[in-house]
């Protein structure tokens, strides 16, 4: 199981890019941490999550 924003999901083997899309986020509006480290945008397509990983996807909304 992979923990995504605090909830367990059957997501092992998926890329960060897939998790972002599965979550309904717009890729240009997110920051993603994998096991507390930032995932560089350029690596979303080839960073694969495995069981035990913890992923935090922050989707920004506008206003300031």
């Amino acid at each position: 199981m992979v923990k995504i924003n605090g909830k367990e999901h059957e997501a092992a083997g998926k890329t960060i890019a897939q998790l972002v899309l599965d979550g309904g986020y717009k890729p240009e509006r997110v920051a993603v941490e994998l096991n507390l480290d930032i995932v560089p945008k350029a690596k979303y397509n080839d960073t694969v999550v495995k069981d035990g990983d913890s992923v935090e996807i922050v989707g920004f909304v506008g206003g300031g």
Partner: protein
Amino acid sequence: MIPSKEEMFAALAERHGTDMQKKLSEASVAVCGLGGLGSNISIALARAGVGRLHIIDFDKVDISNLNRQQYFPDQLGIPKTEALEQTLSRIAPYCHITADTVKLTPDNIPSMLKDEKFICEAFDKADQKAMLVNTVLETYPDKYIVAGSGMAGTFSANLIHTRRVAGRFYLCGDEVNGVAEGEGLFASRVLVCAAHQAHMIIRLISGETEC
């Protein structure tokens, strides 16, 4: 006649404690975007006695800003950097202010933000917020970034919170209610978020890393 630098420090130290005031006066903070969040964050930090503020925005003061941003009708049309520097200099005459009227991009962020340990994300647009947070975290292993997301509408002020997303990345706001969803921005609610961001910066300066 304005007070001397020593008098100002003493007055702040009496309220905040001398050790804390030394930390604040030695701190450097960059505020990226000087709208409703950034103008209010800058003022809170200047009032606390932060020694160096780096204020950055490419835009000019517009009449549509006056509902929530710390500008005045007689400042319409001038760069926000210039307008805010005027105000900050009145509040904290001995604060060292660096003002840059530029648009931050992945290309110039590494050079523009190299000197400040603490960075406030205070942009308006969601993709620009993400760009700044990603670029800072990817570029600098030792800097802290405090971002704002979700402060639009008349929803409860109590929904706005601070959380430590991971390591050096803190997020303030309700994380849900954006202007894109058709909600307007009110000074009261934007200030709650700005205060969360400024306060997290002050806690980080004090050495406290939890929210």
